[in-house]
């Protein structure tokens, strides 16, 4: 029978590794797009999406590509950075170590060491692309080693559950980079992102070619948003990630008698129906608010998981 504490460690190991992966994706998208547009303003929105404007300002540096990228990759004091998330992943894995495969621990440990070494090597913007891709590949490796070696017990289920929820959450944030400004009242002339940005995002989510197969040549930004949010077959879509988390909850109950209880069921249902009924037009302010609502549902579900599995009375 799995200790609550270990369930929480497994859940957060999944979340933190997924967070590193998403960060790599977000920086990659920004870099790829900014390079294309020659736009110095491409980087500031990341700070807004993570509510990091104040923390970044404390460092007294201009929001240039290099400064923001370093802030999110190698700044140990930024809890939202890749190096911090990787450290937290390792610390969760450390508590959980006796329940992980030795291969999984080895991989997490080596990954963390490699990432920690990155901060010493002052990277330039020209290397950002490679760094992001190698980080992403490292996260894929984590998933692969876990899938190939982990016993399919409660630890595995909670790890997958955490990863899936984080994936869903991070995808909404990635899209929101270009949409959150629609909801700020004093900005009335926000330009929606063009097809080029969406193509970059689709590529980063490994969905570009599938999207071309699924949609006619004149598909627009709304179609792309619908695809990334609601397509049930795209591995990185929000719907797919949410479904994966529901599946893990079901297996936890069925295989390990870990009954979810009313609060989790209600929160999962709310998220599921939210994703099943997107607004008619997925653009502008409506899209931002939809993303926001999904994020709120994910937070509610995570809170319910915490109350039920991680912090039970006793």
């Amino acid at each position, binding site marked *: 029978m799995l200790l609550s504490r270990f*369930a929480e460690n497994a859940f957060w190991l999944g979340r933190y590794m997924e967070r590193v992966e998403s960060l790599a994706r977000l920086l990659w998208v920004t870099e790829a797009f900014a390079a294309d547009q020659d736009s110095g303003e491409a980087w500031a929105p990341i700070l807004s999406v993570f509510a990091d404007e104040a923390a970044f300002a404390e460092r007294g540096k201009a929001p240039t590509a290099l400064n923001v990228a370093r802030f999110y990759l190698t700044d140990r004091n930024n809890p939202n950075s890749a190096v911090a998330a990787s450290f937290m992943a390792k610390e969760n894995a450390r508590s959980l170590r006796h*329940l992980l495969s*030795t291969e999984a621990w080895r991989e997490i440990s080596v990954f963390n060491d490699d990432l920690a070494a990155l901060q010493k090597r002052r990277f330039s913007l020209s290397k950002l692309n490679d760094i992001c891709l190698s980080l992403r590949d490292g996260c894929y490796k984590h998933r692969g080693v876990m899938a190939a070696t982990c016993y399919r017990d409660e630890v595995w289920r909670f790890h997958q559950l955490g990863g899936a929820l984080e994936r869903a959450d991070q995808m909404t944030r990635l899209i929101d980079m270009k949409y959150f400004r629609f909801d700020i009242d004093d900005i009335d002339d926000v330009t929606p992102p063009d097809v080029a940005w969406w193509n970059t995002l689709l590529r980063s989510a490994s969905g570009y070619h599938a999207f071309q197969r699924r949609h006619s040549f004149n598909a627009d930004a709304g179609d792309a948003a619908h695809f990334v949010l609601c397509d049930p077959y795209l591995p990185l879509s929000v719907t797919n990630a949410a479904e994966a988390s529901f599946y893990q909850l079901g297996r936890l109950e069925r295989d390990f008698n870990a009954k979810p209880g009313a609060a989790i069921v209600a929160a999962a249902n709310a998220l599921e129906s939210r994703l099943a009924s997107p607004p008619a037009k997925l653009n502008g302010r409506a899209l931002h608010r939809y993303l926001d609502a999904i994020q709120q549902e994910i937070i509610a579900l995570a809170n319910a998981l915490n109350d039920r599995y991680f912090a039970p009375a006793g």
Partner: protein
Amino acid sequence: MPTKSLFAEYDPGENFCEITTSAGGKNNPVARKLSRYNLRTLNQRNAAAERELKNLGITFTVYSDAGAIDRILPFDPLPRQITAADWNLIDTGCIQRVTALNAFLNDVYGKQQILKDGVVPKALVLKNKHFRKEMLGVKLAQGAYTHISGVDLIRDQNGEFLVLEDNCRSPSGVSYVIENRHLMMRSFPDLMEGTKILPVSDYGKRLRGKLSETAPPRIQKPNIVLLTPGVFNSAYFEHVFLAREMGVSLVEGRDLFVDDEDRVFMKSISGLQRVHLIYRRIDDDFLDPEVFREDSMLGTPGLMRALKAGKVTIANAVGAGVADDKAVYAYMPRIIDYYLGEEPILNNVKTWICREKEDRAYVLDHLDELVVKPVGESGGYGIVIGPKATKAEIRDVRKAIKKDPANYIAQPMISLSVCPTLTPRGVAPRHVDLRPFVLTGKDSWVLPGGLTRVAMREGSLIVNSSQGGGSKDTWVMR
């Protein structure tokens, strides 16, 4: 041209060498096989092995402002060997010793006959800081107090194994015994091939089996947990290792809960689950804030209630530390005789007990030749080595002995045996000791071999990992 032997320039001097003096000297099969390696290969394989230790996390962790740093225990790739005949002696000697230690603990927490008979001074036991009056009259399953014991052995210049110290609380290091073997099998398959060595890999299974024998009455399949202080503890890797090898939960105090009926539970994702046996790796002081230190965040309130009610077994038992005190150690030959009516199979290092008048007089006369140890310290702290001490240090320890004689014992200076060891300047002799691990349930079993600790510095006799010692794989030959 024939390749130069690895041992061509190796000279153990006056010391007993575990490879080149033991078992037919340089012609024993292990020595012959080892001598064919060249230094370069050895260094390369050693570097690969140490990298693998780091990657696999076979480490102790040092926390600092810069984050968590995982360090490995230095590993030496040249194994130590023990002949079958020597092992037979160590095996039976350790079992005899642990049997006597358990009998002693049952007695001092029971009828105290040995104290009444004046064999061991009352004050030595009852005023010992590890004596727990809370355990008086408590009946333990199988009478097992020290379920897991470590018997520290050294070997003198004549090759005689001597007991240096007993460890009855939480002897550590067994994970290195097993991991060192795995590492040798990976790094030196050619050396291991065809060499007949007793296996060590079933330790976890044995431990679980022995512990199960001491479960509370009528529990057929006890739920065993390993209680750790947590990831900040330097031995955390060993706790992970043992929980994994036994297939049991690794818990912290906050994961456990004792109810009003004195039953112990752990908090799981499906609610509370009953716990029957706790292999604890935290000290008595921190175990139960209801009874011992109130400020302990590491333990669980109510564990002592559960223990006294017979609803949980705690291994090693609370209060077992009174038996591994250095002052009690001096009486071990008498304790073995008292309970078993036998001569010790493994002798103590000759020990003078400063609380006894004649011994004290001798010690004060020979301070410059003796090693003086405060009792109740561990990890090599507080030791004064006469032949190497300054005049001021001798003066201080003389004063200290006169002031509180009961706090000191003294032993002759013994040169530990040596083993060929890889150093930056080639293969050289370095001093080693040996810690076999003894498991006790209905009866006792000794893990073949044990932890060989090696002082990596030239001439150093201090092998403790807290003071820069490393370890070697230990081969018990079949």
